[in-house]
């Protein structure tokens, strides 16, 4: 068996992988016993052989190799993307998630804005309706004032034909029109309405219009002077189906002669 001194000449060839045959087998058996001389000696020979790598012509790998290695080493991490990659990098997922969240938020805000806008439109319509109602009421009151203040104004009382009914007061002016009003008028069912009639001296009653008392029992109606009241013998109010009637369908509840 060769001793360490003899084997020493074979360290470099062994490190190179050039050793073969009995020499290789002998050195490997020797190293297997962890020889304190040959083991570090072979280690140094490996270091020396490794230096031959510097004989290689200098060459650079493609720029994508680094990214391929890093993406395979750390697939779940934020490895840098490469143009040749087909996988989607983590930052793209983050951006996509943010876009989805922004889109959802935008849709939610749009719907919320639509709901708020619809509510505002409803409020505006209600306000406009209330405004129109107020303007109508104001016009009625102006018209009522003008009728009452007219020089030819004539008061008329419409007496109830049923017990426990209030009396209607009317003011008639040939120039300004007709005003009727009452308080504490009982509520009528929605299917019924009050209808004012002009009862001529001859002929059938003429409808002057329909009205209903408000929640507090107040009732008022004004009309322009479209009818020649000189031909009218009396005013009458009857209960008629909602929508009114061409002719009274029931006996009048209030009647007031124009004398």
């Amino acid at each position, binding site marked *: 068996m060769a001793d360490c001194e003899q084997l020493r*000449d074979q360290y470099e*060839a062994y490190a190179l992988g050039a050793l073969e045959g009995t020499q290789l087998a002998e050195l490997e058996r020797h190293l297997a016993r962890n020889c304190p001389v040959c083991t570090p000696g072979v280690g140094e020979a*490996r270091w020396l*052989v490794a230096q*031959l790598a510097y*004989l290689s012509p200098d060459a650079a790998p493609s720029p994508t190799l680094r990214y391929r*290695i890093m993406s395979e080493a750390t697939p779940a991490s934020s490895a840098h993307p490469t143009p040749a990659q087909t996988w989607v990098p983590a930052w793209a997922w983050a951006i996509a998630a943010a876009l989805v969240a922004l889109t959802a938020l935008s849709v939610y805000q749009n719907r919320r804005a639509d709901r708020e806008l619809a509510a505002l439109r409803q409020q505006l319509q209600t306000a406009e309706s209330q405004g129109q109602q107020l303007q109508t009421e104001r016009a009625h009151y102006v018209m009522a004032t003008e009728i009452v203040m007219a020089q030819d104004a004539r008061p008329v009382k419409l007496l109830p034909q049923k017990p426990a009914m209030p009396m209607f007061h009317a003011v008639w002016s040939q120039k300004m029109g007709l005003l009727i009003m009452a308080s504490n008028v009982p509520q009528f069912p929605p299917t019924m309405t009050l209808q004012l009639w002009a009862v001529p001296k001859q002929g059938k009653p003429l409808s002057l219009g329909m009205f209903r008392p408000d929640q507090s029992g107040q009732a008022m109606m004004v009309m322009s002077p479209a009818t020649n009241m000189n031909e009218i013998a009396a005013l009458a109010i009857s209960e008629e189906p909602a929508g009114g009637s061409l002719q009274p369908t029931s006996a009048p509840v209030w009647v007031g002669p124009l004398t």
Partner: protein
Amino acid sequence: MERLIQRDASALEELYDRYARPVYSLVLRISQQPASAEEIVQDVFLLLWRNAARYHASRGPLEPWLFTLARNRALDFLRLKREKQRRREDSYEFEMPDAVSAPNPVALIDGARRAERVHACIGELPEPQRRAIELAFFEGMTHSEIAAELSEPLGTVKSWIRNGLIRLRESLENASAAGKG
């Protein structure tokens, strides 16, 4: 290496940036195929990443160990190619290179100066002697294979290789001594 064992990806990036070029140069020189060389380099760094815990200080300095690992892998590729017995990569049984010991104070020389010395020393060798060393290192040939390739006596080839490497070690030792002086 501690950071690599702790699965610090930035440590792998740093190692790649530092060693990828010389490792790729070595592997390309052996394989002669850029695409295959990149696959082997990728394999080497991923082996290092996945087996970092198996590497420890007793295996010596990292650079020559990494060169040894890359060379072994490239020569395996070359042998498999020659034998036309390409095995699937996942069936390959990875063997860690044995310990590499830097002979102090040679290791004190930086990589650039060592590369310069290696080029100068081997370049000064007679062509047959330089060729014999290159066939052993880059082609993975044995003594007898080199002798057949160069049509030279086996004993001559053995002497060329051993004497050339001893001369290289002396050159590096002299450079180290000059650097210290």
